[in-house]
């Protein structure tokens, strides 16, 4: 050992740790090395929730069913809000299924740093693994709820002639991906900011609820076009709107499919995701000091 460092040393270093890194060095290759960890986290999330329950993953069905029924009673029957002539349960269930994927991802990723501080404080692995695992485990949950939706959907196709699926259905994987990444992008930005200032945390849970009412979940976009065309721009500015509308259009044949709006949502998601990555990457290095 010497602490003068005067001798020849030409071999390359495997890892150089500097206090600050360039904003574009995201070390994404490292993520790949930890892919097993990603899958184990997904498995952990999924397995641990339903240990010691009898119904297990069937519980995933309960929430969308009850919510659809409540929406049908309050907004459909009492409020008399139009559902574009569709069976109310199917209309609400369609929106809720996709919305849940977004909101679950957002809420769960938004406390990445604070909720995992005890692990992060003891061992290093690419922190992005955690929010990515949330996206994936929520995708599994979404898959199960999607099966429920498909069952209800098929039931209404057979028993009524109001449902008109069309070729837009091919867009579905893309729409789901977009929803997941939008939730992830917002989530990692919020989690990065809340490491130091917790103020935003108070906004998340009720902000997400407000956002739902600014998205066409409990009402069709056509209702806004019809009644308040001057405010439609605000609903459209919400990047979730066009995704939900396209999703509904694909399965139900009603709603508004607009590729210009969808392009906007795509661009919004991409830009937000990269901003999120950069902030997250900057914060992950030293958040332990402030969390």
């Amino acid at each position, binding site marked *: 050992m010497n602490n003068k460092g005067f001798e020849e040393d030409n071999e390359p270093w495997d890892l150089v740790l500097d*206090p600050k890194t360039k904003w574009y060095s995201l070390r994404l290759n490292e993520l790949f090395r930890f892919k097993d960890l990603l899958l184990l986290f997904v498995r952990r999330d999924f397995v641990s929730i339903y240990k010691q329950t009898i119904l297990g993953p069937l519980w995933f069905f309960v929430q969308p069913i009850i919510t659809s029924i409540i929406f049908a009673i309050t907004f459909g029957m009492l409020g008399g809000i139009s559902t574009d002539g569709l069976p109310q349960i199917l209309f609400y269930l369609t929106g809720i299924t996709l919305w849940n994927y977004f909101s679950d991802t957002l809420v769960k990723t938004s406390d990445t740093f604070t909720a995992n501080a005890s692990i992060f404080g003891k061992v290093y692995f690419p922190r992005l693994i955690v929010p990515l695992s949330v996206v994936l485990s929520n995708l599994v949950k979404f898959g199960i709820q999607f099966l429920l939706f498909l069952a209800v959907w098929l039931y209404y196709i057979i028993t009524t002639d109001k449902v008109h699926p069309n070729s837009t259905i091919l867009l579905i994987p893309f729409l789901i991906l977009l929803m997941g990444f939008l939730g992830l992008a917002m989530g990692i930005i919020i989690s990065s900011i809340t490491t130091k200032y917790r103020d935003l945390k108070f906004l998340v849970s009720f902000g997400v609820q407000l956002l739902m009412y600014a998205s066409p979940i409990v009402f069709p976009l056509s209702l806004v076009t019809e009644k308040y065309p001057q405010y439609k721009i605000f609903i459209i500015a919400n990047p979730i709107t066009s995704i939900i509308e396209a999703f509904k259009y694909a399965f139900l044949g009603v709603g508004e499919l607009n590729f210009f709006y969808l392009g906007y949502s795509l661009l919004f998601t991409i830009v937000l995701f990269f901003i999120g990555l950069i902030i997250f990457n900057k914060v992950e290095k030293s958040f332990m000091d402030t969390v």
Partner: protein
Amino acid sequence: MSKIVLSAKNISKQYRLGQLGTGTISHDLNRWWHKARGKEDPYLQVGDANDRTSKGGSDYVWSLKDINFDVRQGDVLGIIGKNGAGKSTLLKILSQVTTQTTGQIKIRGRIAALLEVGTGFHPELTGRENIFLNGAILGMTKQEIKNKFDEIVNFSGVEKYIDTPVKRYSSGMMVRLGFAVAAHLEPEILIIDEVLAVGDAEFQKKCMGKIKNVAGEGRTVLFVSHNMQAMSSLCKNGILLKNGTIDEIGDINSCIKKYNGLFNDSVIGTASIKDRLERANSTGNILFNNIQAFSNGQKSWDFKYDEEIHLKFDCEVRTNSHGALFYMALLDPITTDVLTNIKVIVKEGPLQQGEKISFSIIIPSKTLRIGQFLLYFAIGDPQTQKWYDIVDSNVNLPALTITASDSDIHSNIGVFSIPYKIQINS
């Protein structure tokens, strides 16, 4: 000479003291404003040295300041220092849990840190599932864990419960399982933080053996512990940290010697012991102010086997009391099991407030065998046997260290010499 596998240059780490809150944002804005104009961070120029006993004027403190060292392949480097000297901060930076404020670290090969055993264990998952999860968190791939799975289970000794959720495990079983996974990591550089302070004696021996093996295989180990015996037997080189700077670097034994010396001038000083008592929120009627150890009339915690051990205690009576009962135990430094104890009334009552009590315990020479002994002592009421003040191993007292004397070669075996008589019958 083997190649350098880890090189740290000018590592410094600054922390902000106090709570984060509304006041913090003004500093953040100021910092940002300086940066925007291309100036240096104004808060990097301030900051006190890392000395927790004195309260500095600045909101910022340098937990580490200008740390430079190189580690060569196959080195077992011991990092020692008092609580708060910056050991954990250094480990956190080396293991990438947090980042240094200034300086650069360069590493060759895979590095893994063991700052805690069983990181990320999920209580609902079974032992088997947690082995995979914990292994992956520490950086192993699924295939690597699969290959070593049987070995890990064997080492942990919890085969029977491997398919039971770990929430049903005893804390000892959790630790065993956690260490078993960690012990089967195979990084080129391994960082270990005092995880040996857990588990029973048998398991600790197993762990120490494992660490020795790791070092024997030519891998590099950075090891932090307060257990000087483990340090001197495992490590060749050492770094002694003091208030965030390197106080001594080089041979482990000279670091340990200097480390033990640190206590003689500060912690054993009257002020520090009083600090400790206030922190412990003690309401005792009699409190310890000071303890000093003398060998041959010199202040020292190092003794030769054939030297008398002289321990001097000073107490102060805070509230009128019946008398003073003194208790002292010698503990095994690894297991903290009581090896032997004494109980004696040092002062008959009644005692008046403000009265000082001073007494010495003298252990005859050739009583304690070679090794280390931790002190545990208390003062209490001789009538009710209630303890007013207890000084345990949470306080940074150095261990009594007994080394060999020239005159006796059998004194390195066992713990105590016993008094005996011999009777020759024919």
